[in-house]
């Protein structure tokens, strides 16, 4: 009824948007996700069991899952996981703390844009694997090198998105802020920052994914600890199930990071129109 009524008041309009939103993203969506994952797991298990592919190449998914408590029993899981997560978040924090102010400065000052953004794009486009030897040279073969790799993975991805966001700030909104007497700081705080929150979300997600790859590269080359080191050991011993198990943890960590940032962003931008879904 609500979708067919000719209610043109704002309340009616809100009601319509509300009901449409709830209807599409509620139970149905969760159900689709569960079925989707279940089908994937079952197909994998069946193919691994009956196709005759050696388990060296394709282990059963049940074997992969059961290797996780196995690793825990060997005492290598939690410690290495903790190292990885710690390194990741410290590197991420460093990247954000440097990248975000840099993005705002470049986005709002034309001169800085001209001078600095080519370097930022260069850093963004260079594969990290090429930078790694340099980082090892500068920082030394130690844990700081891994933090540095994560940080320089996060920084440019976040910065290029946010600086473009700053540049696209609505001109009328800025004009309004100035006319109503906003100082430069107030313009920044009350117009630029809120309108770039969606860009921070996107930049953070891109930065996190690239940061995770950076983390992994760091752990492969400096194999003292971290989940990358488990993969390195497992693969030279042909323990494919373990490689997949760590990979699974890796993916779960990445996905939960994305989900958390998405949730925070949605909470902070409730004023936006509900998106296509």
């Amino acid at each position, binding site marked *: 009824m609500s979708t067919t009524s000719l209610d*043109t008041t*704002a309340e009616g*309009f*809100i009601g319509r*948007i509300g009901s449409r939103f709830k209807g599409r993203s509620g139970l149905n969506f969760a159900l689709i996700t569960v079925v989707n994952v279940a089908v994937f797991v079952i197909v994998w298990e069946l193919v691994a069991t009956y196709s005759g592919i050696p388990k060296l190449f394709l282990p059963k998914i049940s074997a992969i899952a059961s290797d996780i408590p196995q690793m825990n029993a060997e005492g290598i899981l939690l410690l290495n996981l903790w190292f990885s997560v710690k390194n990741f978040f410290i590197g991420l924090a460093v990247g954000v703390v440097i990248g975000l102010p840099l993005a705002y400065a470049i986005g709002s000052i*034309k001169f800085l844009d001209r001078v600095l953004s080519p370097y930022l794009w260069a850093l963004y486009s260079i594969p990290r694997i090429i930078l790694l030897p340099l980082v090892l040279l500068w920082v030394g073969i130690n844990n700081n090198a891994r933090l540095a790799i994560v940080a320089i993975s996060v920084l440019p991805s976040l910065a290029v998105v946010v600086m473009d966001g700053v540049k696209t700030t*609505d001109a*009328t*909104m800025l*004009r*309004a*802020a*100035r*006319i*109503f*007497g*906003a*100082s430069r700081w*107030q313009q920044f705080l*009350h*117009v630029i920052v*809120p*309108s770039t929150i969606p860009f921070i979300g996107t930049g953070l997600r891109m930065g996190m994914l690239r940061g995770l790859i950076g983390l992994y590269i760091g752990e492969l080359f400096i194999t003292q600890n971290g989940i990358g080191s488990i993969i390195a050991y497992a693969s030279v011993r042909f323990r494919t199930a373990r490689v997949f198990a760590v990979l699974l943890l890796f993916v779960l960590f990445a996905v939960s990071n994305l989900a958390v940032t998405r949730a925070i962003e949605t909470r902070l*931008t409730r*004023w*936006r*129109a509900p998106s296509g879904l």
Partner: protein
Amino acid sequence: MTEQMERHTEKSADSFGDQRLQESSLGGVNGKDHALIQVHGLTVEYERALGKNEHIVALKNFSLDVREGEFVTVLGPSGCGKSTLLNVISGLVFPKEGDVRVDGKPVTGPSPKWAMVFQDYGLMPWRTVEKNVRFGLEMQKKLDEEAEERVRHYIRMVGLEGFEDAYPRELSGGMRQRVGLARALAIEPEILLMDEPFAAVDLITRELMQDEISRIIAKTGKTVIFVTHSVDEAIILGDRLVVVSARPGRAKCAIEIDLPKPRSEHSLRSSPEYVSLRDRVWSELSAEVQLGRGG
């Protein structure tokens, strides 16, 4: 009166602000009210693109005086520099030549003495109606109980009671512009600058909003500069109508509109004075539209 004499009287008035105010309210110089806004010989240029040395002359030697309490509509073809005029008056853009004075003092930047209503609203989408209306007061750090009362008062005045917690996206175009209007009124400016405020709303809403703006301005006694490209709107709202020439814009002619108030488009359409006034304005304007097209 020569320019020099005018400048001279302004200068002496500057040091006796209060006396001058009395003088103007008694009917000042020339038996007329002294102009509250004096726009004098404005020439404004824009760079066509960053770094290129090509300039667009938006306004050329533009002059306009607006009396206190007067509602001046500024009518012109698109691209004639009407918005530029408001940008200069509000202190956002500085002219190459000429100056703007309000109360005899040169405009050096934005001031709580004036506020603007924008064509595309310029509302903050993350602020509710109430917080948008409070925006100007917040920027000017006036957030006492009186400010809160003002916010409520002007939300009521524009008829948005009950929508305080709605976000702009949940409102129609007309309602968004009411928020824009309340935001401007809330800082209680002497001057209201309106930049084609109803260009983006539908015709029916537009007529309703015109009635309402007349009512609100009559009630609050603001001095208004209202930029539009609609001939009807310019006649219905204005005490005086200024036609701006094609770019570079100058004030081509000013027409006093003596039609009795309150006016409404509906009732005026058939009045002979209105029809002849409309014809006259049209012929002034259409010449400029053709010039603007390069015809």
